């Protein structure tokens, strides 16, 4: 009979592996895609919901007009207001008020007219802010004008009132500024790439790695793959090919979806940056997959393979999650504490530096993420090699 043997790759076994894990891969792909779209939609909503603010000069300009209207209302018992002005077709009445003011104003003050008021309003709206909010603020500012504090004797104004109110609620003005500046979308991106999204893929590689080697060895069905002219390496390398390709396909689908939905929601997309993020995430997943695969090759029992490989992966996830609450960004937002930062040193996820990767495509890309990703690749390759090497030499109780 022909003396043939399969040394490295068995197409028949590969076909079986693909079929055997198809449902798992499909479910993981669907969950991951759903999570991708929802995350992207949420970041879009966050960016649009945020209220913009205008500069001090624009505010001063707007308040100048409002104070003229307010003075006129008080003196002439007129019913002039911002709302009335915005709704009215005919601004003749307002024009005459501004003309009278221009005649009586102190010499150095700028002249006002209806067009200028319109422009000031348009400027606020163009910045994405709401004129209503400034009208409300003006009410208080106008009521306080000329008043002095009964204890301090100092002049009272709106800014002082706001500071006093925040302070009584335990916030400083800086806290409020930070809260307004806080970038929730950056946090969402971090959670997607380094925590929840990664977790979905970790689950896939934990389960798949076990069904590839340790599962069949444990159940005894590996005997069939080895009672044909397959070298042990042919079995491991074939399964490794699956371990390398399956996450690639799943992530490629999600990546395409992310690029398309980003384009849809935001109107523009930096595809290169997204590709880099997914590339980094893929290397992270491969490092975890390598460890899980190695455990699957080392242990003869499913439960041990799952306990060690899966345990490691889950630890990496949990440590990354805890470490996130020790990261500079979250500490600055006031929802993190520094000691938790030590967990960042205890997880492979830290080698996937999304802050640096996100600088890709900006003028000054921070390439410090490259050596870290290289380390992930080395971990993956090494653990795959150890697994294959060990499985070829070990005793199987089939």
């Amino acid at each position: 009979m022909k003396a043939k043997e399969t040394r490295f790759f068995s197409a028949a076994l590969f076909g079986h592996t693909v079929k055997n894990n198809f449902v798992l891969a499909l479910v993981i792909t669907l969950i991951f895609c759903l999570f991708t779209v929802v995350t992207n939609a949420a970041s879009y909503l966050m960016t649009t919901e945020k209220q913009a603010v205008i500069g001090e000069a624009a505010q001063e300009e707007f308040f100048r007009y409002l104070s003229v209207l307010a003075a006129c209302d008080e003196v002439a018992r007129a019913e002039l207001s911002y709302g009335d002005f915005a709704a009215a077709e005919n601004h003749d009445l307002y024009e005459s008020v501004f003309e009278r003011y221009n005649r009586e104003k102190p010499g150095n003050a700028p002249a006002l007219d209806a067009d200028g008021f319109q422009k000031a309003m348009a400027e606020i709206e163009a910045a994405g802010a709401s004129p209503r909010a400034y009208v409300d603020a003006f009410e208080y500012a106008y009521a306080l004008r000329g008043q002095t504090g009964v204890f301090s004797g100092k002049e009272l104004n709106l800014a002082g009132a706001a500071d006093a109110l925040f302070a009584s609620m335990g916030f400083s003005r800086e806290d409020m500024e930070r809260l307004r500046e806080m970038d929730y979308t950056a946090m969402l991106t971090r959670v997607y790439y380094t925590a929840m999204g990664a977790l979905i893929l970790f689950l896939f590689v934990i389960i798949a790695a076990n069904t590839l080697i340790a599962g069949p060895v444990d159940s005894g069905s590996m005997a069939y793959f080895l009672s044909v002219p397959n070298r042990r390496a042919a079995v491991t390398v074939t399964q490794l090919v699956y371990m390398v390709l399956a996450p690639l396909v799943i992530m490629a689908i999600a990546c395409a979806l992310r690029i398309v939905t980003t384009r849809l929601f935001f109107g523009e997309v930096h595809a290169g940056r997204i590709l880099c993020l997914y590339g980094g995430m893929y290397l992270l997943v491969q490092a975890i997959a390598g460890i899980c695969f190695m455990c699957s090759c080392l242990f003869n029992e499913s439960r041990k393979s799952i306990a060690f490989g899966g345990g490691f992966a889950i630890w990496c996830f949990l440590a990354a999650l805890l470490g996130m609450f020790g990261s500079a960004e979250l500490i600055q937002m006031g929802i993190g504490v520094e000691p938790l930062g030590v967990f960042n040193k205890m997880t492979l996820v830290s080698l996937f530096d999304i802050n640096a990767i996100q600088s890709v495509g900006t003028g000054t890309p921070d390439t410090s993420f490259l050596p870290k990703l290289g380390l992930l690749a080395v971990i993956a390759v090494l653990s795959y090699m150890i697994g294959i090497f060990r499985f070829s030499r070990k005793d199987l109780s089939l």
Partner: protein
Amino acid sequence: MTDQPVLRVDHLTKDYGRGRGAFDITLAVGRGECYGFLGPNGAGKTTTIRHLMGFSKPNKGSSAILGRDCWRDAAILKNDIGYIPGEIELPAAMTGAGFLRMMEKMRGVTDHGRTARLVERFHLDPSVRVKKMSFGMKRKLAIVTALMHDPAVLILDEPSSGLDPMMQKEFIDCIAEEKSRGKTIFLSSHFFHEIDAACDRAAIIKEGHIVSEMDLKALKAKEGNGFDLEKYFLDFYREEAEGRTGDES
């Protein structure tokens, strides 16, 4: 049978600790010969076969088939070996037919006629999913898988357990046919009639050691027609057991 033995086990030792395993097993099976391997549960039959299949590496000694070392040349030897495992856990998520097709592909078998004839012969319904198969059906699937590539050597670990009496008879006939076609057979079994009908020689293994090796043909010739193998073996097992309790007391 005069030339080099096809299957040779040479002082093979595998110690699983606490006296378990196989110790200093030596045997040889010639071309066209059927060799029976008998012994109580946990005696070390499967352990020996594991080494013949290259699944385990011996602590001491070696085993070879067709002149090739069973551990080192495990993969290439499988071209000439048909194996029925003692435990019949099959890969999940496919039908019997899918499984047979996969095994044919992995063996490079292109002539599907032989597989089809075997399926026919053992009344196997290959359209059933492997997970849903009864014990006996899985056993039949294993038998077809072991014979599909018409191998020169058959290594069978309790191959007919789980088969109904009619299928057991069919299987014994099948083994006899293969033997007459010059195939070498290594058969571990608990069924005396199976050993009786098919084997030329047999060894009895106990607690990892071969305690007796006998030439069944010569024995039958000596004892004449009324020879009862079952009684002979049961007496043998009993004697051994009594001998041991005798030692202990």
